[in-house]
């Protein structure tokens, strides 16, 4: 049983390491990304990886309650991405449609 626990905690550590490495790669793309879409994708990926990292860290640290916080981060990440794509499409955050309430976030 003890060995089982140890192996699994090591697996979480390995997962955390993998997430950190892919985070670095996504961040690199966000730095150099020539087009807007590279950057949006890279930032969104970084956000998702942060969510995963928080979840994995919660299990690694023996506090699975961190899952709730990871959920909140996922929500914020989504709202941010919607706002960014809206900016790219309409160059504005509201009143972009013909009707006054068309473009509200």
């Amino acid at each position: 049983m003890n060995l089982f626990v140890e192996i699994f905690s090591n697996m979480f550590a390995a997962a955390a390491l993998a997430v950190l490495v892919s985070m670095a790669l996504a961040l690199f793309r966000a730095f150099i990304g020539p087009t807007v879409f590279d950057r949006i994708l890279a930032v969104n990926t970084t956000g998702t990886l942060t969510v995963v990292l928080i979840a994995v860290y919660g299990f690694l640290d023996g506090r699975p309650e961190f899952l709730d916080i990871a959920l909140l981060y996922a929500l914020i990440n989504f709202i941010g991405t919607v706002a960014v794509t809206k900016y790219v499409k309409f160059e504005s955050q509201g009143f972009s449609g013909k009707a006054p309430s068309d473009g509200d976030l």
Partner: protein
Amino acid sequence: MIAIALLLFMAASAFWLVRLRNLFAVVMLSGVYSLFAAALYLVMDAVDVAFTEAAVGAGISTVLMLSTLALTSRTEKSHNKLSVMPLLLVFITGGVLVYGTFDMPRYGDINAPIHQHVANHYIEKSAAEVGPPNIVTSILASYRGFDTLGETAVVFTAAIGVLAILGRVKGQGMSTSRVAYRRKEDVEEENKEDDKAVSDKKETTS
């Protein structure tokens, strides 16, 4: 180790934030920076601060910055002159701040003043002195009651301000700003449609 990696990511993002001249990329990167900061706070057990950082730093301020970008230009004017005085000032300020941290208690130190001063009193006596089983509730509502009252007043004022700016009845809209925010293409399209309608009318009448 995760904390160190996150700090490295933050440093790298901050460096590129300064280097980049494309303001859209800068806004995106500042969102990423805030996200890393929030994750770092979480790893260091400050969950409430991490919540605030993620909601305000990564969420709302990115949206606000993008709205601002929509009204201004997309790139920053570049100037390559190296100014020595500000750089020196920044280094001195940073050095003083780092020097200040030497006096702080170590991270997680049980003998730190914050764990010795009134915390023990709250933990031992709050149930008898105030009542609620939740210590945080009795601290916020009783021991720091006036502080909480002031905070509530600040939040209330901010909410009134936001409502005064943004609040509007659905369907009525704000006529002037609606025209200002309309896209150029939409206006042109509308004009075209109007022209077409007028010419159609002419054809039918003739």
